């Protein structure tokens, strides 16, 4: 344990420690989940502080391997850590009142969110696939449980089951892929795998890589591995769906970048066509199906699949453009998707059997009854649709730009076309919010302060990133180098 340095692994460790603390306090605070949420928030803050402390060294370009090469501290990973922590913090705060309303105010919720975050942090801060596997499973298991958190609801439990079965199925593929990679490269270290790919790309290495890719594609929600997403996002408690939609994709993309662009970067020519077609398929299918949705959560779920497609465009671009585009897009995606889902959480009304509150119909005229909520949701939707000057527009712009620069014209055209289609369904929600007569007499729920604060923060993120993306883009430009 000569090379063990607690400081270097503190971001994940702090999360785990505070998660355990939360669990410890859970019996003392039955029915007062918020107190535990506070503990969780503190944990995220400590972790963020630890990450920030590492930043100067890593920001200067140093890449520190620690813990037997299992942890890689570099700016890339730290950046992802910060994004994940931000998502986690927003989720935690937004959940305070939401869980009370859903009668699922268990302190364990916060512990699980923290543990999931810890898993994700582990996953993004490594170049060793074993750590990826462990991190992936930690957060996946936590999310299976969180999905079924409102266990009295048929939809919640159903989605948990589906998520679990398909998730386990896909991790079977993932693990098998690891076995093959180990067999072909003699190690699960991405550095070694990359070396093997460059020197001796045996068929088994490719098949192994393909299986790992499939496993990651599942988490990201790439068509045709996306089927779980709509069902699970719809069935899960909405705050969990928000967390899942953003954090999972972010963490999985970090790994995908290290894996494809990092380790398999030199054989870009080989896998680029595959990713191209997956991307096209993903965008097109998701956006077309989203057009046919009437449930807001489901619609957002398909939208998130579609965004995975846009993100994959940048994967085939030249790394110096593409990586930055992905990172920027992920950040803006996190803000707008989190915001949109949490708006849905603020509105959603449902019981054990049905959830009419997420039906587009019951959103009719919402804007006039809850003005702030309506404005916020519209902003997020506009951003998702890619209308300037929001973050969503810039994100898409940066992606298409990098596609053009890499001469990926097909992808750029399909991407922009899809953005046109997508505007159709986002707009339908806006139309419902502002331009339809309310269908029910029921007053919408008041928006609790904590949730409102989160929405304001997300909206601010969307706008700030749209108006002054400069600093972030500058920063991200420096992260693209040296993924493994």
């Amino acid at each position, binding site marked *: 344990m000569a090379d063990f340095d607690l400081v270097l692994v503190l971001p994940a460790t702090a999360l785990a420690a505070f998660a355990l603390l939360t669990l410890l306090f859970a019996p003392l605070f039955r029915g007062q989940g918020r107190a535990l949420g506070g503990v969780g928030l503190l944990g995220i803050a400590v972790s963020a502080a630890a990450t920030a402390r590492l930043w100067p060294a890593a920001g200067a370009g140093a890449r520190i391997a620690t813990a*037997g090469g*299992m942890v890689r501290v570099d700016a890339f990973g730290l950046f992802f850590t910060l994004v994940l922590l931000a998502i986690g913090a927003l989720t935690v705060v937004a959940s305070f009142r939401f869980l009370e309303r859903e009668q699922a105010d268990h302190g*364990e919720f916060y512990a699980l969110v923290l543990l999931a975050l810890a898993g994700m942090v582990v996953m993004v801060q490594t170049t060793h696939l074993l*750590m990826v596997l462990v991190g992936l499973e930690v957060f996946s298991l936590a999310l299976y449980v969180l999905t*079924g958190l409102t*266990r009295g609801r048929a939809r919640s439990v159903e989605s948990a089951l589906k998520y679990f079965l398909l998730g386990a199925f896909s991790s079977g593929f993932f693990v098998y892929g690891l076995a093959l990679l180990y067999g072909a490269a003699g190690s699960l270290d991405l550095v070694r795998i990359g070396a093997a790919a460059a020197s001796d790309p045996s068929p088994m290495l490719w098949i192994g890589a393909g299986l790992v890719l499939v496993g990651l594609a599942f988490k990201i929600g790439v068509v045709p591995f996306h089927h779980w997403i709509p069902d699970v996002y719809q069935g899960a408690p909405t705050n969990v769906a928000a967390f899942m939609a953003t954090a999972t994709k972010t963490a999985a993309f970090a790994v995908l970048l290290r894996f494809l662009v990092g380790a398999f970067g030199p054989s870009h020519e080989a896998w680029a066509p595959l990713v191209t077609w997956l991307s096209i398929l993903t965008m097109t299918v998701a956006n077309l199906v989203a057009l046919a949705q009437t449930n807001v959560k489901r619609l957002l779920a398909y939208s998130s699949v579609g965004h995975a497609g846009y993100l994959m465009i940048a994967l085939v671009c030249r790394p110096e453009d593409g990586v930055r585009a992905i990172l920027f897009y992920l950040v803006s995606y996190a803000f707008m998707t989190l915001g949109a889902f949490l708006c849905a959480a603020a509105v959603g009304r449902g019981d054990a059997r049905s959830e009419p509150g997420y039906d587009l119909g019951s959103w009719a005229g919402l804007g006039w009854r809850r003005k702030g909520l309506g404005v916020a949701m519209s902003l997020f939707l506009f951003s998702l649709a890619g209308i300037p000057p929001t973050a969503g527009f810039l994100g898409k712009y940066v992606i298409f730009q990098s596609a053009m620069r890499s001469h990926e014209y097909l992808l750029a055209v399909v991407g922009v076309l899809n953005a046109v289609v997508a505007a159709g369904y986002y707009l339908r929600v806006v139309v419902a919010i502002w331009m339809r007569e309310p269908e029910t007499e029921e007053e919408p729920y008041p928006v609790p302060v904590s949730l409102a604060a989160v929405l304001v923060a997300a909206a601010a993120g969307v706008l700030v990133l749209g108006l002054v993306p400069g600093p972030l883009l500058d920063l991200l430009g420096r992260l693209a180098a040296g993924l493994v």
Partner: protein
Amino acid sequence: MEAIAFYVLAVLAVASAIVVIVHRNPVMSALALAVNLVTIAGFYLVLRAQFVALLQVIVYAGAILVLIVFVIMLLNLREELKARSPGTFQKWLGPILALVFAVVLGRAMLAHAAPSFPAPVPGFGTAAALGIDLFSRFYYPFEVVSLLLVVAMVGAVLLAKRRL
């Protein structure tokens, strides 16, 4: 002698796996799985990975499978019904795809396999060899994997406990 053991184990493993996925009664599936797990442990043993072989029996057969059987009995599950609605094309397409999958997988793997295993290095597969590696190079994942167990524990309680 080892070759015979290999073939016997191979036949047993595949046969029991087929029973797992074919038998309509979940308990029988579970028992077949137990056989399968033990034969896999047998494989490990023949491959000189003794420690892992023992772990295999203890963890898989002794813990995981018992848990599964326990739940099957707790829920008093009956024989599975014949597939209905989504079954028609699933029944045909599934095996075909699986076959293609197996062929692709098998070709790549067999192409890579060496003609024979090298002689085992001294200490291969012993608890000591494993332990030294585990606690020198792999101690961090070892620690992190404990989080996995925490999550599983909390999750199981949260989802399955009758009253929270």
